């Protein structure tokens, strides 16, 4: 878990986490576009009728968050807002259910669909936050250690 200096990508030891962050950025943009386009449909199936604008605001938030993840040098600061957004989304879904319990299936489907991404968000945020900000130490040279 180390930074590389002068590079937008982090050290080789955490390149998998960096790739996961980029995937979450792309996912965030796609989800946001979906919410902007189908805000009305989503609102109708999750008990949020009359609040289509809220779904679209969330969509805009997702797009903005995704772009910040993709274009920032260090995505750590922008993964945590995704986790906060996940909490906000969950609270809104529960609120929608309390407004109109007949849409329970829509709410359940929404929860099941986003749960893996929520886990990935939390994992990625914790992993990136656990990194040292010190530059990578130079690789030790063991090129002369044949032994035979």
């Amino acid at each position, binding site marked *: 878990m180390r930074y590389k200096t002068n590079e937008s990508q982090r050290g*080789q030891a955490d*390149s*998998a986490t960096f*790739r996961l962050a980029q995937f979450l950025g792309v996912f965030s943009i796609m989800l946001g576009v979906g919410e902007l386009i189908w805000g009305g449909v989503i609102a109708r199936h999750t008990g949020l009728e009359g609040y289509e604008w809220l779904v679209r605001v969330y969509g805009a938030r997702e797009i903005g968050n995704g772009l910040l993840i993709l274009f920032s040098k260090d995505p750590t600061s922008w993964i945590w807002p995704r986790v906060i957004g996940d909490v906000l989304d969950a609270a809104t879904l529960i609120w929608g259910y309390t407004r109109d319990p007949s849409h329970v299936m829509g709410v359940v489907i929404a929860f099941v669909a986003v749960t893996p991404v929520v886990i990935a968000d939390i994992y990625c945020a914790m992993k990136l936050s656990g990194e040292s900000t010190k530059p990578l*130490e130079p*690789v*030790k*040279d*063991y*090129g*002369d*250690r*044949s*032994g*035979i």
Partner: protein
Amino acid sequence: MRALRWYGKEDVRVEQVPDPTIEDPRDAIVKVTSCAICGSDLHLYDHFMVGLEKGDILGHEFMGEVVEVGKGVNGKLKVGERVVVPFTIFCGECDQCRKGNYSVCERTNRKKENADKMFGHSTAGLFGYTHLTGGYSGGQAEYVRVPFADCTHIKVPESLTDEQVLFLGDIFPTGWQAAAQCDIEPTDTVAIWGCGPVGQFTIRSAILMNAKQVIAIDRVPERLAMAQAAGATTINFETQSVVEILNDLTQGKGPEKCIDAVGMEAHVSSTLDSVVDRAKQAMMMETDRPHVLREMMYVCRPAGTLSIPGVYGGLMDKIPFGAAMNKGLTFRMGQTHVNRWTDDLLRRIEEGQIDPSFVITHRMNLNDAPKMYETFRDKKDGCIKVVLTP
């Protein structure tokens, strides 16, 4: 005396404990002059192996000077002699020992009933490696009681340094046995997963056994550089496709011999199976992460051999046994029958064919052991092998 004791996950401490004493006529007491942290000690440090108790003394790679012997040693070992102690304790008399299968000695596991329950039948006693294998105190200490000491020792000449012979107790014969189990022929390509200490010795063993091509797989640049220094072709699995490159280097046929020097804690990479393994391990639905085994079974040439020196502890899922069966693969594995190989390996060291000290990257005092466990586990500071002096 001072000794390194285990107290829980990532919790090891150097503490004062009572000096060991002769408990059985076949015992000896060895004053430790050098000891090492082994990759398999990390399975204990990370608490992936069951059967340790709080306060157990770790360490199974050590050497020193004999300071006391029991009456039953019968002159086979004398006070003042310099010995490397093999990590497998063996009696030399049971059916298995007479066949040279020292790591499955039938008599040295004093807590046999535990191993019988876990494995079906008991294996040999091991130093500092859980109560499944006898619960014997280990060698990361100033003194060690060596049971069955009339057999369990390797005498080493004064002309060789500790660093040249220390690894005869574990990683050198382990790497050698891994390669020997493959019955390497001069036309063979040998692929070795893992360039940690055992992997490094496996690479050199395969080269000394005249393999046509040795391919080493890891992701840590320092380890890959050390593998390359011996003459291996290297693959960085984080940036390259292991299966594609192995096939490219073997005209699309796959390596004849594949060796797993990784074991139960395979790196959780971007592959789906390794992530699923880690999640299942965390939920106690699986004890081991067998990504390397799956990859070997998939890429190995039909009628090839898989050799497994890497330590596995229990149960694993999604093993492509259909591929293994249909391709007619041979599996060979096991803890190392250390003394089966050490006469030959000591000769090779004396003749200058190999200097095992090449692998040492950190030399520290026993007091620094807790910090060095972490450094070694996290592969910090280019750490490949730690040697401690009490």
